[in-house]
């Protein structure tokens, strides 16, 4: 048993993963702090139910903790692993719902009932991206939010933030590169 308590708040994802796999329960808490909200949001958006989202989030962290020894860093990041568990849990729920729906459909002869609005993987990537954009420091994050979500042009952004146009463009490029790498890191899990 380990007696030392480490402050994991500033630890890298990779160090946190090692502590998690090693059974340090403060790593579970920190992982929940980092990714609990993301996983809840994904589950909520996929299932459109706060109680199910709550349930899934709980299951993901309990499941990951109890199965922590099967985590292998060579296969991907800790968030990638957690998201993989979440994806399977959510997909299970969606399949169960689809089955229920089939029964309903058979009973009421209603055709063309829409089950899923967008593929789960796309939804996850999208919400991971939102999370990562929100974590970008100012002004980089602000620039990207304005460009992506408010549809503003770079010159509009430059004017509003009172920054040179070149600075805005360079931040946007760097942010995009950063996001590409983060998206890859966070969602990676080879099965």
């Amino acid at each position, binding site marked *: 048993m380990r007696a030392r308590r480490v402050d994991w708040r500033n630890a890298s994802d990779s160090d946190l993963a090692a502590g998690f796999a090693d059974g340090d329960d403060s790593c579970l808490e920190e992982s929940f702090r980092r990714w609990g909200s993301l996983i809840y949001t994904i589950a909520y958006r996929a299932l459109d139910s706060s109680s199910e989202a*709550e349930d899934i989030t709980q299951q993901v*962290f309990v499941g990951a903790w109890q199965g922590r020894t099967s985590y292998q860093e060579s296969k991907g990041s800790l968030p990638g692993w957690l998201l993989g568990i979440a994806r399977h849990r959510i997909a299970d729920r969606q399949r169960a719902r689809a089955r229920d729906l089939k029964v309903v459909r058979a009973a009421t002869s209603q055709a063309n009932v829409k089950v899923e609005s967008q593929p789960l993987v796309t939804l996850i990537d999208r919400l991971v991206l939102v999370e990562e954009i929100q974590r970008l420091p100012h002004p980089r994050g602000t620039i990207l939010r304005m460009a992506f979500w408010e549809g503003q042009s770079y010159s509009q952004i430059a004017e509003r933030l009172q920054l040179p146009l070149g600075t805005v463009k360079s931040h946007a490029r760097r942010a995009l590169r950063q996001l590409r790498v983060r998206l890859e890191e966070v969602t990676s899990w080879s099965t």
Partner: protein
Amino acid sequence: MVHVNSALLAGHALGQDDALDAADQEHLASCSHCRAELDQYRRVVTLGQGTQASETPTPPLDRIWRSIQAELAPTSATEEIAATKTMVADSAPSLTANDRPASDVPGNDETANDKPLSVVAASDETTDAGGAKPIPGRRRKWWPIVAAAAALGLVVGAGATVIINRNDVQVAASTALSALPGHTGHGTAELLRTPNDPELRVSVDGPQPADRYREVWLINSDGQRMYSLGVLPESGTATYPLPTLLANGLDGFTIVDVSIEPYDGNPEHSRNSQVRGTLPE
């Protein structure tokens, strides 16, 4: 070949038309590496632009965290083994989800806590699931035996060849050992009757993880009790003497379990098992 600068590619993906000059454009047309990188940026842009303002309620993180803590509150070791196996089977992404039943079947998640043995025991083992009550402090009493057995494990393993070549040794029962979810390996366990104490010969063909050792356990089908038989040598084969008490029958100690243990000096089962099998009683 000089690739197009990543920053320029990112700019191009963001729709900055002035990002690439004619030479860059020409290079891009013939370079799959740069096109792949550009595609990745475009994907991020598409994902980002397609994102709508979230209507997600604020997650009740405090409540969820309390539920997680409550669910992970200490239970008996075997229950945790069972829970681990169930949860891994349910949730590990390395498994094929499509082949599995939905995990939200009512009561499925309770199975691990209420009926540890239905999971711990092999499928052909009839168990008194749920009937066994935890016996406070009971496991603790085994640890002196455990410690002694662990200390002897390597010595016994080294002497194994001598022991198993004796003529008066009979294989009374045997079982295949199969890998648990998330693990690879297989093996056999044979219960040997000798003129003296019974012995268990274990042979595992599977990877020994770096910075870990393996330990052989005999778990009771009541899910409450277990013996540590000792360390499994790196060769994967060893023979272990069993407590004399088991000379006339296994008395329910039928589950042979090989765990992967960290070098932490903690005598308890790590709840991380590599292979497992059940001997016929």
